[in-house]
């Protein structure tokens, strides 16, 4: 519920690359059981923000609170340790391996002799897919190369949630998909939230966002440009915030227009 402590709170996150100010005093709250959409035009700072959360970039200043406690995420391993998983736009699956092998890639179940425990991995993969109601995959022993785009995305998402993760970040999960497959993936995103996970969804597609998101955070030119609840806003309002939104938070000096690209 919205009034409890957010799973992840970002406070005044600032990040610059040389002279380019990518993020300025950005706040971002992510709640359990909710889909938090992160939207903005190209160069608005969405990617930089998730990279800060995933430990790929360290913020120059600002605070990160996870489950109410301040944390320092200084590398991808720290993020994974906290239970943060990222599903990248370009998927990162091995086409030549089957579904089970991809789900366990790099974290294979094995005994002391490094022998793989195939039955264990196979059963848990089937259970995970079933719990997420990913039902169109005919055999979990078929190579990922033979799957459709939507099925591949489902496998990538299922892999992210299998490891007791608390927060799953999806970077443009529907960018390369057709209509039917997009529906399939959006259903899956909703289900993740229903299971109590916190989901960050990054997308250019407002239709997708309005289909699944509970809360929409708009970034513009590296600053907060509005936080909307899906049920209390319209697409027009969000579009306006993306293209012409004024910074909603002014700290110190008022921002001048068009400082960053």
């Amino acid at each position, binding site marked *: 519920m919205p009034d409890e402590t957010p799973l992840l709170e970002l406070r005044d996150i600032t990040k610059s690359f040389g002279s380019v100010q990518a993020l300025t005093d950005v706040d971002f709250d992510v709640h359990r059981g909710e889909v938090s959409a992160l939207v903005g035009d190209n160069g608005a700072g969405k990617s930089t923000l998730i990279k800060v959360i995933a430990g790929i970039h360290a913020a120059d200043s600002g605070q990160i609170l996870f489950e109410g406690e301040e944390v320092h995420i200084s590398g991808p391993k720290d993020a994974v340790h906290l239970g943060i998983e990222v599903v990248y736009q370009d998927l990162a699956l*091995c086409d*030549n*391996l089957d579904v089970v092998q991809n789900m366990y*890639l790099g974290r294979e179940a094995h005994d002391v002799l490094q022998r793989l425990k195939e039955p264990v991995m196979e*059963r848990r993969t089937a259970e995970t897919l*079933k719990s997420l109601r*990913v039902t169109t995959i*005919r*055999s979990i022993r078929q190579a990922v190369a033979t799957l*459709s785009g939507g099925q591949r995305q489902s496998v990538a998402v299922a892999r992210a949630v299998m490891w007791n993760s608390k927060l799953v970040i999806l970077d443009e999960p529907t960018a390369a998909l057709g209509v039917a497959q997009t529906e399939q993936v959006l259903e899956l995103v909703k289900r993740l939230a229903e299971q109590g996970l916190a989901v960050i969804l990054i997308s250019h597609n407002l239709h997708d966002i309005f289909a699944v998101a509970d809360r929409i955070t708009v970034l513009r030119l590296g600053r907060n440009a509005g936080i909307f609840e899906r049920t209390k806003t319209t697409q027009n309002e969000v579009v306006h915030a993306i293209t012409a939104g004024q910074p909603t938070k002014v700290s110190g000096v008022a921002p001048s227009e068009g400082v960053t690209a």
Partner: protein
Amino acid sequence: MTTETAEVVVSTEPPFESFGTRVWENLKGGNLGSLPVVVGLTIIVIVFSLTAQNFFTAVNFNNIITQMAGTTMLAYGVVFVLLLGEIDLSIAYLSGIAGLVAAELQQPDSGHFLPGIWPIVFALAAAVAIGAFQGSFVAIIGVPAFVVTLAGLLAWQGVIQVGIGAGGPIIIQNRWINYTESYFFSNGAGWLIAGLLSVAYVGGTAASVINQRRHGVTIRYPYFVAAKAVAIPATAFLAVAICNHDRGVPLAGLEIIAFLLFWTFVARRTTFGRHVYAVGGNAEAARRAGISVPRIRILVFMISGLMAGVGGILLAANVRSVAPSQGGGTLLLDAISAAVIGGTSLFGGRGTVRSAVLGAAVISTISNGLFIFAFQPGVIFITTGCILLFAVTLDTLARRRQAKTGR
């Protein structure tokens, strides 16, 4: 783009799918597996048996096994390198280096004489070290494997020539070395080996079936598993029967099988093997999944070095000497062709250890059969070349097919 028409429910029990369906799906999906090479080998054997006088005999069966053993060992290493999507051109002369080290260390009056098995141990250690050395250039610095191992090809060839010098071939008298290629088991020992292998195979299959049942995983293709549990022991006994008709089971044949089993286990049943396939399939995905890609690359080049070393010992034992030309000729191309003809992809990520044996069997059988016909070596090269082109074309078509059916 495909759209999902029917929704088939995935439960913890995968839906029933017959073995025939799987084979057909694999073929459609461009996954040919060992099928073309097995069919090809059968045709080659039938043609030679019908046309050549002394081809289909027990003596020749043993000859082919001992002739292919050295190449097969190199090809095992090639399979791992190809699975990564890399290449190792140094293996043939690396095998010569191993032969040279072993031959030097067994020379009785050389001042660095080592008895018994020690020359072999040091030769293999040297080959592994060289593999690690070359592999680190590829894995850590990022020099293309083609160039690193091409440099190795030139340099190790030179080392062999300088090392042997003007003295001519070094004769090998060490029995440990020579027996690797020329020892034949007695008839009784041969039957015992067939029996042990059969018991081990059937026992292993039963254990894995029980394990799967215990975890509630359905056994796919139960009839196929059962058929294999009958066919493989039967083949083992048939092979021993043929060998015993001649000199008995050759140790070289047992070495081929032992390494086949070991490397198949490594490739299919260990985390390391899984990571080799992953790096070959998508190195970036493997890296993001937390796999140390450089570590895998170096280890694979060490395997390549080790197997080149093992092959080098067998090839030296074959002629009981090491000459300045050791590791030359068509050895390199035979070893790489063997893996590719057997069905391992040049593009990485797809292939099996057994492809090395199957491909080496094709190459050795052709050269053996054509030799019986007293064809010139030129004809043998032309034939092998055509088969190689055919195999790679098949692989490329399969890949395109796979790219089409995917997504």
